C-alpha cells in the first residue's frame, strides 16, 4: 500500500480490486457467450426478411398491423398481472410464517410449498384438466365456466409460480437485525407499525424482485397457455405459432424483442430500489429470532396448512392419474404406465440423462452464479462493468425458452464458431440450462449478499487478508443457505425444463421432461403423469438431502445467534 508516503484522497485500486475486476471481466465474457451473443443472433433477425436482408422495422410494422397482436398483448399483461397480484401476497405471508413466526413443522411446510417447482409445468395442467375439465372431478366448482382460458392459465400459473416467489421472499425475510425490533419495542411501537416501518422496508428489495420475477415468468411461459389457454391468445403462444407453426423466425424474433420489455423495466426499477437499500446485516447485527405468539402462530399455521394441502392435492391428482388405465372411462389402477419403454424407445434412459444434466447444471451453475453475484455486489468501482453484467444477468428471465433454444442453434451452430464443438453435446444443454435459469439464481444470491455489510470486506482489507480468503472464510459460509437454495433451484429446474432444450438435444441426450411432453402429445397422459411423478420424487429426495446437509452445516450459521 502506498498509504505511508502520501495518503491519496481517492483510493487507488488495490491488487484485490484488480483481481476482482479481472474476474468480473471473465464473468462478463461468460454472460456474453451464454446469453447476449446467442440472443443477438436470433433477435437481429427481427430486422431482416426471410433471406437475411436488412429491412429495418418492416417486420415490426407488419406485426402491429396483425389484428391479433393487441389482444395477445393485453391478454398477456392481464394474466401476468393477475397471477402476480395473487401470488406475491400469498407467498409473502407464507414466507413470513416460515421466517418470522414460531409455527411448528416449518421444514414440512417449506417442503410442501416447493412441490410445484419440482414438477414439470405440464403437471398442474394435467391436474387442472382432471379436476376441472369437461370430465373433471370437481367440474361443478367452476359454475359451468370452462377451465380453458384466462381462469385456467391464472390458476395453473399461481400454482407454478408460488415456490419461485416464496424462495426469494424467504431469503429476503430470513436476514433481519434483532436490534431494530428491540429498539422498536423499547420505543413502544405497535406491531402494525413495526411491520410497516421495519419488516416491509427490509423486504422491499425482495418484494419488488419477486413481483418482477413472477410477472416475467408468466408472460414468457408458454407451456401452460398451450394446454389450458383455450382460445385465450398470449404473446408466448404467438411465438409458438410463428416459430413452430410457420418457421417464421423473423416474426418470432419480433415477439421475442417485445417480451424483453418487462426485463428491461425491471432492471431500471431494480437500479432505483437497490440505491436505497441499506444492508440489513451490518457487522454488528444480531440475527432476528422470532418469539412465540400464540394467536399469530396459529393463524399462520392454518394459512400455511390451507396452501400446503391445496398444493399436495393438485400433486396427488397427477400421481393418481399416472396409475389410471384409461381416463375417464376405465379408472382401474395399473402399473403399466411406468413401463416407459412402451411409449418411447429410450424408456428410462431419458431419466438418467436428466439426472446428469441436472447435477452438472447445479454444480457448475451454483459456482458461476454465486461468484458472479459476489463480483457484482462486492467489487469496488468499475460501475459500468458491474451494471452491464447485472443487466446481462437479468435478461434470461425475460427470454422465452423457445427463443433461447433457437438462438443457441443460431449461435453455436454457426459455421466457424470454435464453440461449435459443444453443439449436440450434454455440455451445451448444461450451459443452456444455467443460462435459462440464471436470473432467479442471481437474484437469490444477490439478495443474500446485499444483506451482508460491506464492512466485512473493509475489515479484511485493513487486516491485509486477501479477498479470496474473506470470500471462502466469511462470505460463503454466511451465505451457505442461499447457495444451497441456488443449487437446488438449478437442479430441479434442469429436471423439468423443456422449451429451450427441445431444440438442442441429440439422440443420446434427450431429457425426461421432453419425453413427458412427447408422451402427452401422443395421448399417453398417464405415462406423462408417471414420468412427472418420478421427477417430483427425485427432486424431492435431493431437496431432503439438502435439508439434511444444512443441518450438518448449521455450525456455519451458529454465529448468527447471540
Amino acid at each position, binding site marked *: 500500500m502506498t498509504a505511508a508516503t502520501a495518503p491519496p484522497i481517492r483510493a487507488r485500486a488495490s491488487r484485490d480490486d484488480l483481481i476482482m475486476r479481472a474476474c468480473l471481466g471473465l464473468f462478463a465474457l461468460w454472460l456474453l457467450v451464454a446469453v447476449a451473443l446467442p440472443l443477438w443472433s436470433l433477435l437481429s433477425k427481427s430486422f431482416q426478411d426471410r433471406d437475411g436482408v436488412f429491412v429495418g422495422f418492416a417486420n415490426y410494422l407488419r406485426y402491429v398491423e396483425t389484428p*391479433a397482436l393487441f389482444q395477445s398483448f393485453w*391478454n398477456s399483461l392481464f394474466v401476468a398481472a393477475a397471477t402476480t397480484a395473487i401470488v406475491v401476497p400469498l407467498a409473502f405471508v407464507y414466507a413470513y410464517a416460515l421466517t418470522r413466526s414460531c409455527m411448528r413443522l416449518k421444514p414440512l411446510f417449506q417442503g410442501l410449498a416447493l412441490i410445484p417447482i419440482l414438477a414439470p409445468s405440464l403437471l398442474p395442467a394435467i391436474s387442472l384438466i382432471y379436476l376441472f375439465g*369437461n*370430465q373433471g372431478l370437481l367440474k361443478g366448482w367452476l359454475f359451468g365456466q*370452462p377451465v*380453458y382460458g*384466462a381462469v385456467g392459465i391464472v390458476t395453473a400459473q399461481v400454482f407454478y409460480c408460488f415456490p419461485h416467489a416464496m424462495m426469494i421472499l424467504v431469503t429476503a425475510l430470513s436476514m433481519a437485525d434483532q436490534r431494530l425490533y428491540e429498539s422498536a419495542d423499547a420505543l413502544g411501537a405497535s406491531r402494525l407499525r413495526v411491520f410497516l416501518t421495519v419488516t416491509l422496508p427490509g423486504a422491499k428489495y425482495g418484494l419488488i424482485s419477486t413481483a418482477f420475477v413472477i410477472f416475467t415468468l408468466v408472460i414468457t411461459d408458454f407451456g401452460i397457455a398451450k394446454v389450458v389457454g*383455450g*382460445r*385465450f*391468445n398470449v404473446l408466448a*403462444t404467438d411465438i409458438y*405459432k410463428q*416459430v*413452430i*407453426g*410457420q*418457421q417464421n*423466425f423473423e416474426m418470432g424474433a419480433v415477439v421475442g424483442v417485445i417480451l424483453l420489455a418487462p426485463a428491461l423495466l425491471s432492471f431500471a426499477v431494480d437500479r432505483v430500489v437497490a440505491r436505497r437499500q441499506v444492508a440489513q446485516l451490518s457487522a454488528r447485527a444480531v440475527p432476528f429470532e422470532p418469539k412465540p405468539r400464540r394467536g399469530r402462530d396459529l393463524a399462520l399455521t392454518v394459512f400455511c396448512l390451507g396452501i400446503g394441502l391445496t398444493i399436495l392435492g393438485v400433486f396427488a391428482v397427477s400421481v393418481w392419474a399416472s396409475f389410471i*388405465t*384409461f*381416463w*375417464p*372411462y376405465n379408472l382401474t389402477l395399473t402399473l403399466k404406465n411406468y413401463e416407459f419403454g*412402451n*411409449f*418411447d*424407445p429410450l424408456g428410462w434412459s431419458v431419466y438418467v440423462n436428466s439426472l446428469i444434466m441436472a447435477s*452438472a447444471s447445479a*454444480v*457448475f451453475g451454483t*459456482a458461476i452464479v454465486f461468484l458472479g453475484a459476489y463480483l457484482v455486489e462486492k467489487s469496488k468501482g468499475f460501475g459500468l462493468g458491474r451494471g452491464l453484467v447485472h443487466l446481462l444477468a437479468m435478461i434470461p428471465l425475460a427470454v422465452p425458452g423457445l427463443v433461447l433454444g*433457437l438462438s443457441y*442453434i*443460431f449461435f453455436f*451452430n454457426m*459455421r466457424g464458431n470454435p464453440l*461449435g*464443438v*459443444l*453443439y*449436440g*453435446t*450434454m*455440455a451445451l444443454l448444461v450451459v443452456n440450462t444455467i443460462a435459462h435459469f440464471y436470473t432467479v439464481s442471481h437474484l437469490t444470491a444477490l439478495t443474500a449478499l446485499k444483506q451482508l455489510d460491506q464492512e466485512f470486506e473493509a475489515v479484511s482489507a485493513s487486516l491485509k487478508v486477501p479477498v479470496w480468503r474473506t470470500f*471462502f472464510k466469511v462470505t460463503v459460509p454466511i451465505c451457505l443457505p442461499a447457495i444451497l437454495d441456488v443449487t437446488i433451484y438449478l437442479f430441479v429446474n434442469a429436471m423439468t425444463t423443456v422449451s429451450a432444450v*427441445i*431444440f438442442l*438435444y*441429440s*439422440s*443420446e*441426450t434427450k431429457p425426461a421432461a*421432453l419425453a413427458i411432453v*412427447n*408422451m402427452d*402429445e*401422443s*395421448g399417453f*397422459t398417464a405415462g406423462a403423469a408417471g414420468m412427472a411423478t418420478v421427477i417430483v420424487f427425485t427432486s424431492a429426495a435431493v431437496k431432503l438431502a439438502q435439508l439434511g446437509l444444512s443441518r450438518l452445516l448449521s455450525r456455519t450459521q451458529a454465529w448468527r445467534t447471540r
Partner: protein
Amino acid sequence: MTRHRIWMPLALAAMAALVALPSDALAQKTRITVYTALENDQLGPYKAAFEADNPTVEIAWVRDSTGVMTARLVAEKDNPRADVIWGLSASSVVLFENMGMLTGYTPKGADGIKPVFRDAKNPAMWTGMDAYLSVVCFNTKEAEKTKAPAPKSWKDLTNAAYKGQIVMPNPASSGTGYLTVAAWLQVMGEAEGWKYMDALHQNIAVYTHSGSAPCVQAATGERLMGIGFDMRGAVEKTKGAPIDLILPSEGAGWEMEATAIVKGTKNLDAAQKLVDWTISRKANELYGKYYAIVAMPGINAAPPNYPAGAEKAMVKNDLAWMAKERDRILAEWTKRYDGKSAPK
C-alpha cells in the same frame, strides 16, 4: 483450502467427460443422424428392421413433433447436423427443397412406388412413405349422453347441436390444421370454403396447437369430437377409447410422410442405403401396420381400428398450391378466427 484443490481437477474432469460423451461412436459402424417426426412407438421397429438388413449402418434418431423438427432443421440450415430426414411431412420437406437444403437421390426401386409418392424430378429430391388424413374422431359415449347425432360429412359439423363441442388444430400452429383448412378450400372452392369455416367456427370450442390433441381430447371425452390426425384416433380406439373415426363424405385433406437426404452429409453412402431401404417392400409392410395408405401398391395396409376406404377419401390435393398460398391463407384464417377472444 485443500478441499478446493481437490475439487478443481474433479470438476474439470467432469466437464471433459460431458463434452466427450457423445463421441464414443462404434468403430466400424457408420452412424447416421436421422431427424424424424415419426411416432415414438414406430422408432424401435423401424430402426431394428433397417439395421437387420444393413448391419454396417446404425441409426441415431432425433425425434420431436413436426413443427419442432422443421424449425430445428431450418435453423441449422447453414451447418446441417442431420444426415437423413425420414418421416417428416412432405410440405416441410418441400420447404427444405426450396431453401436448397437437400441432395437429390432417386433410390433403387423408385419405380415400384405410386407416382404421387415420389418427387417427379430426376434425381428425386424426396420420396414418400405413407399418407395420413385429417378425420373426425367422434366420442360415442358422450354422444349418447347428449343424444348428439354422428356426423357423416363436413357439412354436418355446422349442426347447431354441436355448439362449443368440436376441437380442431389451429392451422397457424399445426400442419394437420393447415392441411384440413387447405382441403376445404380446394374441395369447396375459396368462397364456399370460408363460408363453411365461418359456420363451423360457431361450434368450435378451442383451436389446439397440436394435430394430435383433437383426437386425444375426443378419446377422453373432454370434447364430443375432434378434427385431426387419423392415426392418433385409431391408436386411442385400440387403447379402449369409445370413439369412431369418421371419413367425411366430401373427402379428407391428407399429407404424406417423406424421406430426403440433407445436403452436405458426410455419410452419403449410408444415407443412400437408408433411403433405398425406406421404399422397399419390407419397409412399406412396416408402414402398413400403422398407416392405411402406403407408398407401394398392393401392400396390405390395415392398422387396427382404422375405417375402410381411406384411400378413396383422399381429396385431390395440390401440394405446390398449398405451399404457395400458405402465408395468405393463414393470414386470412388468423384474421377471421384467431383474433377473437375466448368465448364468454
